[in-house]
């Protein structure tokens, strides 16, 4: 134990005396701190945007309250003067792993007559269903959040610290000297590598804890996040040990950088290309076509036909024989027209969403082809910023819209479009959305990476002994003498 402490102590001394180590560590910390700031700023922006939509809805509803308090009004007015917020509030850990949150919508006002019409074609009244305004150049560059630092930069840090862990000794002529020490050579190498792994974990862990603390994340989620990171780091330690066995430091550095490039860039890019070929998403243009077709088919329908078609789809509103709908001033005209359009488009939307789900499931399988992808997936899952959660939000938004419509449709059809002050409290102002974050989606990847890391370390440990010391029958002392 004392020997190990001594090795680590001198290793540490050597490191901190190296200007490049101090520079690289400092640079990494600076980038890490900026990444924390960036993630928090992104989350704050989204929170503020949600608050703005909420405030706008509240303010409209407050104005409407004065109208109602002066006397009864119509449900159609209540519909247009109220809103329902459906927001995907960022989880605290989204500040650490922002994931796909920057490409999708997160604050919707469900007060719209046709969900699909506003979502897919016009957004005439309700822009919250449109895309968020972001510079595509920024999306191309991607988020510089903490997950980027942990996934891309920390393995590089480990590589830079460890690429010459064996060859450095060889080049300095101290490897043979180590061979005559009482400590086993592979034990010595492994100790030094684990020390570097520890350093990587400590720096990354400190950034995670600082970020999670600033974001007010709960301890369990932070622990899971750290667990994923530890698994990922261990995996990289194994890769480093396996690929740093050449006698030349240059070759080791090149091999390790190639491994890093393959696992972090080339393979993900290749998987993405294959995924696009395997699961192309084509349904969007079909939806836009269907929106226009549905609108052109439904709008010109005679009012009586329109009403009957609607009541066939929603028989619960057919209580007594009804007069035909009159036109724009009739609440039921709006409900019927857009109710039929949305009903027509629902199967196409479902088809699109199921194609999207298939694509996501296929992508999740590809994730197992690279620890970088697996770690990113697990981080995003924990932060509820993955494609699954965003799709879930997207599909639940339509259900929320249907729920809101159901409330108002019952007033339009069964309540004779009357609206009283007493009913004011029933207006749905917000439907809560809670992202589903199942534990197994990130504990699996974390354990898998940890296991892979341990296996690779074990394999590397065995191989180091055989390759580092050179041919078995070569005497050590003459080698030292010739040097």
């Amino acid at each position, binding site marked *: 134990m004392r020997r190990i402490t001594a090795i680590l102590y001198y290793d540490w001394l050597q490191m901190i005396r190296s200007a490049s180590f101090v520079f690289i560590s400092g640079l990494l910390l600076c980038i890490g701190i900026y990444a924390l700031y960036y993630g928090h700023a992104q989350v704050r922006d989204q929170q503020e*945007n949600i608050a703005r939509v909420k405030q706008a809805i509240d303010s409209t509803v407050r104005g409407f309250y004065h109208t109602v308090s002066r006397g009864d009004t119509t449900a159609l007015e209540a519909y247009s003067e109220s809103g329902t917020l459906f927001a995907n509030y960022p989880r605290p850990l989204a500040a650490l792993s922002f994931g796909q949150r920057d490409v999708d919508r997160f604050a919707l006002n469900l007060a719209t007559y046709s969900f699909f019409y506003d979502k897919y074609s016009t957004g005439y009244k309700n822009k919250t269903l449109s895309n968020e305004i972001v*510079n595509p150049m920024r*999306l191309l560059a991607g988020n510089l959040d903490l997950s980027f630092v942990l996934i891309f930069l920390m393995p590089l840090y480990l590589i830079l610290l460890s690429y010459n862990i064996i060859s450095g000794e060889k*080049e300095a002529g101290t490897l043979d000297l180590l061979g005559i020490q009482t400590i086993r050579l592979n034990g010595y190498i492994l100790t030094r590598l684990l020390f570097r792994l520890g350093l990587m974990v400590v720096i990354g862990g400190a950034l995670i804890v600082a970020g999670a603390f600033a974001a007010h994340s709960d301890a369990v989620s932070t622990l899971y996040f750290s667990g994923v990171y530890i698994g990922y780091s261990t995996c990289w330690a194994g890769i480093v040990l396996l690929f740093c066995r050449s006698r030349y430091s240059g070759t080791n550095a090149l091999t390790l950088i190639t491994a890093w490039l393959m696992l972090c860039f080339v393979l993900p890019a290749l998987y993405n*290309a294959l*995924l696009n070929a395997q699961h192309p998403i084509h349904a969007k243009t079909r939806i*836009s076509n269907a929106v226009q077709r549905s609108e052109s088919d439904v709008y010109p329908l005679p009012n009586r036909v329109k009403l009957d078609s609607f009541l066939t789809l929603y028989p619960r509103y057919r209580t007594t024989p009804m007069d035909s709908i009159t036109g724009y001033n009739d609440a039921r005209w709006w409900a019927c027209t857009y109710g039929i359009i949305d009903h027509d488009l629902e199967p196409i939307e479902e088809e699109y969403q199921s194609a999207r789900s298939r694509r996501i499931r296929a992508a999740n399988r590809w994730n197992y082809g690279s620890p970088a*992808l697996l770690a990113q997936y697990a981080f995003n899952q924990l932060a509820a910023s993955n494609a699954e959660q965003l799709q879930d939000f997207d599909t639940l938004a339509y259900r929320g819209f249907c729920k809101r419509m159901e409330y108002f449709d019952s007033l339009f059809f069964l309540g004779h479009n009357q609206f009283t002050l007493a009913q004011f409290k029933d207006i749905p102002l917000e439907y809560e959305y809670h992202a589903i974050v199942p534990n197994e989606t990130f504990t699996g990847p974390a354990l898998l990476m940890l296991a892979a890391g341990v296996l690779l370390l074990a394999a590397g440990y065995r191989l180091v002994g055989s390759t580092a010391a050179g041919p078995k029958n070569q005497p050590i002392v003459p080698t030292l003498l010739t040097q």
Partner: protein
Amino acid sequence: MTGVIAKHEFARLWKDRRLLLLSGVLLVLLITSLVTATQNIGALRAERLEAQEASRRRWLEQIPRNPHVAAHFGNFAFRIQTPLSLFDDGLDSYTGTYVYLEPHKQNDIKFSQAQEATSIGRFSHFTPAFILQTLLPLLIIFLCFASVTKEKEDDTLRLLLLQGASMRQVVLGKVLGNFGAIALLMILFFVISGVALAGLAGGNASVWPALLLLFGAYFAYAFVFTVVAIVISAHSRSSRASLMKLLGIWILACIIVPKIAANLAGNLYQTPSQFQFNEMVRQDEKNGLDGHNPADSRRNALLKQTLAKYGVDTITKLSVNFDAIAMVESEKYTTMVYRKRFGQVEGQFQKQNAFCEWIGLADPFQAIQSCSMALCGTDYDHFRQFHAQAEQYRLYFVNTMNEFMVTHTKTGDWSTSFGRDLYQTIEPFAYHPPPVGWSLARRPVSFVLLLFWLAICPLLIHSTRKIPVVQ
């Protein structure tokens, strides 16, 4: 002497199995990227072209309507990918697929591919541009990091200098020798890409000058990296130090700086959220003319003007449809509002992009990325060009319908309907991609910065003249 060294270096590389192996890997990656991209782009193009035709068909097949109501039926404009997006898909995945064109509103281009992407899609895009921008510099580093240091370590550099070569000649010879091998690889790259492009471009001849310019730009980029790699090798004491410095430069230039630049630019030049943007537009619209609202005071002012123009005293005596005139005016106003507000957002985007572009002064990756996207028609300017043409088309068909209503109906007449004959007078939407010259003119900074990097290469080589040979 430079020629001899170059020839020797080229011959050494030619025999080196590393070059063969790495080039082979890059070629396999290139072919894979071309195959997958051809399939993907081909399918998307066909689908969008079909959707564009379907939109046109539906426009023509709509029931007879009042011209303004018919305009409300709207048209879709689909963004068709350029054949060169096969080479560099740039912002294609992050910009929307289509825009819905209708009266009164300038809509956003909706639904980017990125919205359907999973986290895999955010890592990197597998295109020839990715290979040339990111992987090729690494290949150059692998080949060149020891080109001078090895001579130092083997003590052969002194021999070379003793034979009368100057350090500058040695470095220049190494640059030419190494670049010769890399250039051969690049030629092969572009020939393969050209073959793949020929299949996708069909008879579109405009892609070839762009491909030629792309070749020139990437040639310059590869040359810059070769010079940097060999100059750093010359300045380094050992191959290890040289490699570490070069890898550090590569990581900073190709991975970290582009990301930091884009994110910093976003923080420096902020844009409103979609909700805020909409509120601003709503406020502006409130102050304008409401074409549909007869109680609007600005509409009354316009009515007075129109009555005076036609020399009548009441609206019923007007020979034209005043409702339609009001709508034409209203369209003008809303267009002005949208131009102003979209202009503000775009102004911020342009500032963000310009910030990143100027980073090209310190990072050739930024310069080549920008040049490559511009030449392939997948950069922000091309996206804007599509949006502008779509908006122009929107104004064209909405105004045509409104103006038809002005002269063919009377005020208050919303029931007279016109059918296919009227709809056919509207030309179908067709996006005309700007020529290559336009792309060059839109991104002068990036192209100049690439030339700037090329121009400082002799200076970098010159800086090696006083390097001590004996360490």
